[in-house]
């Protein structure tokens, strides 16, 4: 089970690094936690809301251990994220350079951190 997330987003363990601005960044960068929420929403769309209804998806949620995602669903999630965030987020290149252990231990927070990194460039 995913641990309950009661602390502020920026202090969650495994959370992406907090950005300097608390308010919406004028450059269009997402607020802290916003990308995590988007990833969580797309996870629900990919594996089905009926399966995630009882789960509290946060940065520490593991795709394999907590969500039981199959590899085909992980690819489907990558496709959904690519559609949502566009060409600035290159999942094909990112996934290609990851090691096996990285993929097995992949969490919502790591994917969100990668997206935020791409969007901030």
């Amino acid at each position: 089970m995913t641990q309950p997330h009661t602390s502020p987003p920026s202090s969650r363990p495994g959370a992406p690094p907090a950005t300097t601005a608390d308010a919406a960044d004028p450059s269009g960068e997402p607020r802290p936690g916003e990308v995590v929420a988007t990833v969580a929403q797309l996870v629900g769309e990919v594996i089905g809301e009926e399966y995630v209804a009882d789960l509290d998806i946060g940065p520490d949620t593991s795709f394999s251990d907590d969500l039981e995602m199959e590899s085909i669903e992980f690819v489907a999630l990558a496709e959904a994220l690519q559609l949502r965030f566009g060409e600035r987020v290159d999942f094909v290149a990112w996934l290609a350079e990851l090691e096996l252990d990285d993929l097995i231990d992949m969490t919502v927070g790591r994917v969100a951190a990668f997206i935020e990194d791409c969007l901030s460039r």
Partner: protein
Amino acid sequence: MLWPFLRFPDERTVAQRQRSGWWLLLERWTDSASRELMVRRYTDADERTDYSARNPLAQRSWLLGRAVAKDAVRQHLWAMGAPPMYPVEVQVGHDDAGAPHVSAPTEATGLHLSIAHSAHVGVARLSTEGPVGIDVEQVKPRGEGFSALAFTDAERRILARASDQQPGDPVAANDDDPDFDVRLTAMWAAKEAAAKAAGTGLQGRPGDWMITEAVGDRIRVNDTWVEVEVLDIAPPGGNPNRTERIEPDTYVVAWTAGPQVPAADHPHDRPSQRPGALT
């Protein structure tokens, strides 16, 4: 299916052997009471501890996999002359790479097992001849992005050519091609099955398992031929009193067939519900 099993759990199975030689188990125990009944029939104390430690999502797929594996092994051993046997008498373990192995009251050494699950469907395949792999995937609408992430350009040409009905871009999905997602899912499942037969699984590396050919309902992955079958399965929980029709979900099952192409004039025709779905 469930009722005869509950009366004679040491002589009946819930999973059913398919004509193509693999076992199919449909999850029809969606409420907690009937799920608990399945857990009690199929697991011993150690397995129940293992089961209880998992989250609800993991419990469901774990139970599906264990049950279909135990039913497959029991039916196989009965066919070899074994006496009645309860599911708890069959033990399913995993090696470090995740490949399953079995032990049972009667001789089960040399029995190769592969298990897979997707949504409400569990499948298993057994062999006494060597390692086997099986996979099942629910067919869902996928797009170009999925195809680009999962397959090489050469594989995408096979994916497109298989339909032979796309006059435009040879690697693009086509709105007029309703079987595109079936073929795409079949190609993915074929990779999974071949990777599992090798004892490793896909491990997030679809590129290590190259599809080089697709002929009829057979797909070649590296040097391994994989057979695929398309199933339409109604989702569980349908109310028989409701008059509106519930659309079935489509699944693809893929299993390794060995290094040679099986003879086309197979003695018993494969019961594919969509013959030639890939061509």
